[in-house]
């Protein structure tokens, strides 16, 4: 009625709402003192490298306003790069440059920016424009990911990324995010990116949504979304599961990208992952979360044991 779902139906299907996520999962399983592990991407990178987790290469950082010009020494001459705030949230303040030529630096969208625009962007980052709470921040320069050709034709202008929800070290739900023309090359679902729900045990597409509506084809390229199947899924699950030990956060969103040469890389971690993943999967995630909560184990399982447990218990018949 009135274009609204019935709250009882949602509850029966195990859909988690924002309030429940905040109170029953984030507040309960994510210790606030551990937030800097994920909110500060530089720190996340250090921690991940210690655990032997693959991350995009860090080309350099800019910490002070008077060093801003030094950024041009770090930039690769023949490669794309991206500049992002270390404490940014929700993909804010990420400048992606795919190549450079005599017209300047080309953005993912095809438009050009000049050196002064890059300087201004870094100044904004340093002043804390994009950081949580407006704190002073550090600008990171990263090598651009060359995304795996298996996604060719599935993503418009942007890098597709894979979001996994990892609860107490167990991957419980996964989604592939594909940029569209409408989302302006960004992988944010509320801006019009396509979300493809993935079977958490196989990496095969289940269903796809754009603007919360079911879609079967990519709106720009018309490729059938149902055909998507991520290879080597277990290695992605393992990578995501390890991030539990890295961050210490019980309820964690892990963003992965597939690099053509290096395989899966951890792009960033999120202590407050969103709920749109449920729409992409056409399924609530409470069932799996409660399953994990009810586990009574005498000793904590290691990463491989956890993956085995998930593969055994969360399989969904297609």
């Amino acid at each position: 009625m009135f274009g609204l779902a019935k709250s009882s139906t949602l509850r029966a299907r195990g859909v988690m709402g924002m309030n429940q996520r905040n109170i029953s999962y984030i507040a309960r399983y994510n210790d606030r003192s551990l937030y800097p592990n994920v909110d500060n991407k530089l720190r996340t990178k250090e921690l991940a490298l210690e655990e032997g987790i693959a991350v995009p290469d860090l080309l350099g950082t800019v910490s002070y306003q008077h060093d801003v010009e030094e950024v041009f020494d770090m930039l690769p001459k023949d490669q794309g790069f991206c500049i992002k705030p270390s404490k940014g949230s929700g993909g804010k303040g990420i400048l992606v440059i795919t190549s450079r030529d005599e017209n300047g630096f080309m953005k993912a969208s095809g438009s050009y920016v000049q050196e002064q625009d890059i300087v201004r962007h870094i100044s904004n980052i340093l002043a804390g424009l994009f950081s949580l709470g407006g704190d002073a921040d550090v600008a990171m320069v990263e090598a651009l990911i060359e995304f795996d050709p298996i996604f060719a034709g599935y993503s418009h202008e942007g890098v597709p990324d894979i979001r996994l929800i990892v609860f107490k070290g167990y991957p419980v739900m996964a989604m592939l995010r594909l940029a569209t023309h409408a989302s302006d090359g960004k992988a944010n679902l509320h801006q019009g990116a396509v979300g493809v729900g993935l079977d958490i045990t196989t990496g095969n597409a289940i269903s796809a949504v754009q603007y919360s509506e079911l879609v079967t084809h990519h709106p720009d390229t018309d490729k059938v979304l149902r055909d998507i199947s991520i290879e080597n899924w277990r290695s992605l699950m393992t990578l995501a599961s390890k991030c539990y030990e890295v961050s210490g956060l019980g309820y964690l969103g892990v963003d992965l990208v597939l690099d053509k040469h290096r395989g899966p890389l951890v792009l960033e971690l999120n202590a407050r992952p969103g709920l749109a993943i449920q729409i992409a999967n056409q399924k609530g995630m409470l069932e799996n979360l409660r399953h994990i909560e009810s586990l009574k184990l005498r000793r904590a399982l290691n990463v491989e044991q956890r993956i085995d447990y998930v593969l055994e218990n969360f399989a969904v018949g297609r």
Partner: protein
Amino acid sequence: MTSRLPFLFLIFVLLLVGISNIYYRHVHNGVPLTPGQRIDIWQVEAEVTFTGVGKPVTVSLNLPRDRQFELIEEFTASPAYGVTISRDGGDSKAVWSKREVRGSQTLYYKASFKNALDPPSDEGPTEISEIPFQAEPYESSAKSLLAQARNKSGSQSTFIDQVVQLINSDDQNMAMLLSRYSRTNAFALLMEYAQFPIKRVRGLQLEDERRNQSLIPLIKVWVDNEWRLLNLGNVALDEEVPLLIWVEDEPSVLDVTGGEDSSLRFAISKFSTSAVREANNVARDKSWGFGLYSLPIAEQNLFRSILLLPLGALVVVFLRIMIGIRCSGTFMPVLIATSFIQTELLNGLLGFTLVVAVGLMIRSYLSHLNLLMVSRISAVVIVVIGIIIAFTIFAFRMGLTEALTITFFPMVIMAWTIERMSILWEEEGAHEVLVQGGGSLFIALIAYLLMDNYLMRHWAFNFLGVHALIMAAVLMMGQYTGYRLLELRRFKALG
């Protein structure tokens, strides 16, 4: 999860504190639930005059103790006299004294009364007076009158009605009694014969702007478990005007020793005052009467607006947690709503939209200047001030004086709003700006409607318990894990 018991207990305590505070303020302090209620206050001035004859003088004036009225304040005016006002037990009197007094003297006692909030019920008679013995033929006259009345009546109250009728009739026996007694005394005598408990009282009619009034002798009869007040004198009582009982069963009102030609006159004036102010005056005088009215006016006015903020916060919490409306800046809408109160709604909405729209345009130019963030926001603050000045002058020239209130907007908040919206525009597109800007204005509008409601304003300031209730509501909503209303739409594809 930790036990919910302490939490529920806290909620319970807050609710209890809130409700009992409101109950106490309303019932015991008499703070009305709606503003604008007025109560009547009577100022009674008793003027005692006498002539001194060079001897020490003691003047004792009995003071009223009428349960139907509450004494607000009293004072005496009397040059060079020692004055004590004593109220112990059944006795309450003002006593003036002076060593040597000559010539005409005037003493004043002034008191203000209001209707008692919850007058205690009447106490019954303590004893029935003995049957008085009267010489013949008065005794037999009385007895035959009583027999007559008894014949014509069926109950105690109709019996008394009959006696009153007889007093007003031209019955022979009655004429006999009235040849010796005043009407009041004759009635009292008859009542004593009939074994009805009576009280001789004297009352004052509280009629506005009256001077030179005196006390009216009256009789109270205990009938059907209540005191019935009867006027048997020649002065007709105005039923509309309240009556203050000054003395009960006391031989004299005024007692002057050492003076001559004493007299007592009353002057009455009535005025009405705000029930709220009066109630808080009362509360202030009691040491445990905790009220904001004891503060200076400037601080009171400050708290009047500060105490509206919890209401705004409640709206924000409700609309964000239960409904799921998004806005920019958590409590920015409350601050905007506070300015709406100053500017009036339409001016506020128009002014806010205009300033933000023009600010966004100028801000988009500033973003090309490669400024550091702090200086850019400072520039936006200055620009906002400029816009407001320009609008104000323009509106004044056009004769739109209502638009002058635009200056009430918090400039720094406006600058931050413009900055946030501008970033949002660049990052997420115009659609998100409309969603969040519209959400903020919507929340501000709801908060304004609540904060500007005269009942809410009255309660927020006069019943501090309301804030305990708001606190309880905010805490309870903080533990709400159900779906937000807008999530039902968001997850439509799943339901």
